[in-house]
């Protein structure tokens, strides 16, 4: 039975000690511990949320980047296509112009040649005419050296003229 009955001395000291322990721990140990725990839990929670936000943002940014890239690509393609078109056009135009120029050069050359040819022909004609007259003159001079022959010839010419 003596084991069961609480002793007054122990009861007395336990009351003092227990109150002291509860007070000291309640004042100096548990508040910083619980505060520290809470702060850490909050900070972990916040960090996790921030990480999630960052991840979401990153995802969004990535999507945006991809979109931008796609757009840039399209624009590039468009620019390239247009450039190609312009290039072709320029080349075509240049070719056309060159052709036209060449044509016109050839044309003018031909004209010049024709003119020169015509001039040459006229000159030749004149020359031939001159030479012919000279020759004819000389021939006539030779032929009509003798009076008979001149007379014959005139007669022949008259005859011919009468016949016509």
């Amino acid at each position, binding site marked *: 039975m003596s084991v069961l009955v609480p002793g007054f001395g122990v009861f007395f000291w336990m*009351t003092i000690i227990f109150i002291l322990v509860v007070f000291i*721990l309640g004042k100096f140990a548990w*508040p910083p*511990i619980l505060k520290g725990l809470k702060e850490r839990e909050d900070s972990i929670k916040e960090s996790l949320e921030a990480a999630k936000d960052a991840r979401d943002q990153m995802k969004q940014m990535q999507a945006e980047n991809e979109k931008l890239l796609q757009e840039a690509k399209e624009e590039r393609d468009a620019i390239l296509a247009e450039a190609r078109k312009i290039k072709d056009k320029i080349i075509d135009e240049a070719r056309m112009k060159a052709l036209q120029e060449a044509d016109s050069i050839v044309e003018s050359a031909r004209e010049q040649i024709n003119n020169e040819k015509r001039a040459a022909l006229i000159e030749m004609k004149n020359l031939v005419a001159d030479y012919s007259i000279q020759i004819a003159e000389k021939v006539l001079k030779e032929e009509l050296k003798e009076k008979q022959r001149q007379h014959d010839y005139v007669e022949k010419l008259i005859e011919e003229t009468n016949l016509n």
Partner: protein
Amino acid sequence: MARQNLVNKSVVLLIIFFLSLSMPVFAAPQHAKQESEFEKEQKEAEQEGFELGKLIIEHITDSYEYHIFQIGEHHFTVSLPVILYDQGHWVTFWSSEFHHHHGEYKGYYIAEKGNNQGKIVRKNAEGVEVRPRLDISITRTVGTLMLNSLMVIFIFLWVAKTYRRRKEMAPKGFQSFMEPLIVFIRDDVAKASIGKDHYERFTPFLLTLFFFIFFNNLLGIIPFFPWSVGVTANTAITGVMALAVFIITTVNGNKHYWTDIFNTPGVPWWLKFPIPLMPIVEVMGLFIKPIVLMIRLFANMIAGHTAIMGFVALIFIFAKFSVGLGYGVSVVSVMFSIFLDMLEVLVALIQAYVFTILSALYFGMAVEKPHH
């Protein structure tokens, strides 16, 4: 309950073992020696058994000194201060004045038998042993309690310092050992039992309660000075804690709590009037709850200590019959003692948890809001 079963089972096993082992040993002296001689031996053994019983009781009851060990007639003890208030003045002296139960100081001595056995008494005018008016001596329970409490305070101030220094960092060292327990008490005991509106008010007390009991339970398992005494295996110790729980519950009781007690809803009116049966039962329950808290912890702790002491004592009882038997039994006794020590570690944690969660539940009842 499970624990009781285990202890019972081990006792049965032990008895079977002893029966198989001891039969030939018992039989041998019966043939060799005369009947009377054997009876004498048995009586001696009984005497020894009784002595060992007394020894066990001495180990689990309080004492005015630490008895460390004994060689022959030489006792190695650490004496403690005796503080008495009697006949109008204080009397203080060291317990070494008693010379291990054989001395006296100013008429005060330790009673050998009777109701006050083991306690300081004096003879009054009629020659009857009486207790001094007040006895607040630092007994070994109080001494160990002071030491353990200092340890608990020191450990948690240290842990608190770590928390202050390592803000928002991962726990380290002793802090990481305590943190799961602290978080467990806060979340799964306080928050779960009291509810998230009020638990913060009670958490520091519950934490103190849990770690105070847990450390005292654990340290009580150590069989050496100065822990050879189980502090929590004492009704005064558990009683103070139960009383604290009772006072906090009562002070914090809201209108809903007292209505539940004095005018329990959902009960037929004839249980309340003319004889207030339900209120009587409820009011009794008010006091029974802390008393049960006190008894449960005390009984669990003392049972463990007693069982281990018993197993150790068995070695000496059987060694009286024969030295060989003593050695044989020692193997089993040591094995069972180790097993019980393991169990004690588990019980130390479980009982601290049970005390704390029940306290939390009582606080929870006191501050619970009516739910309709």
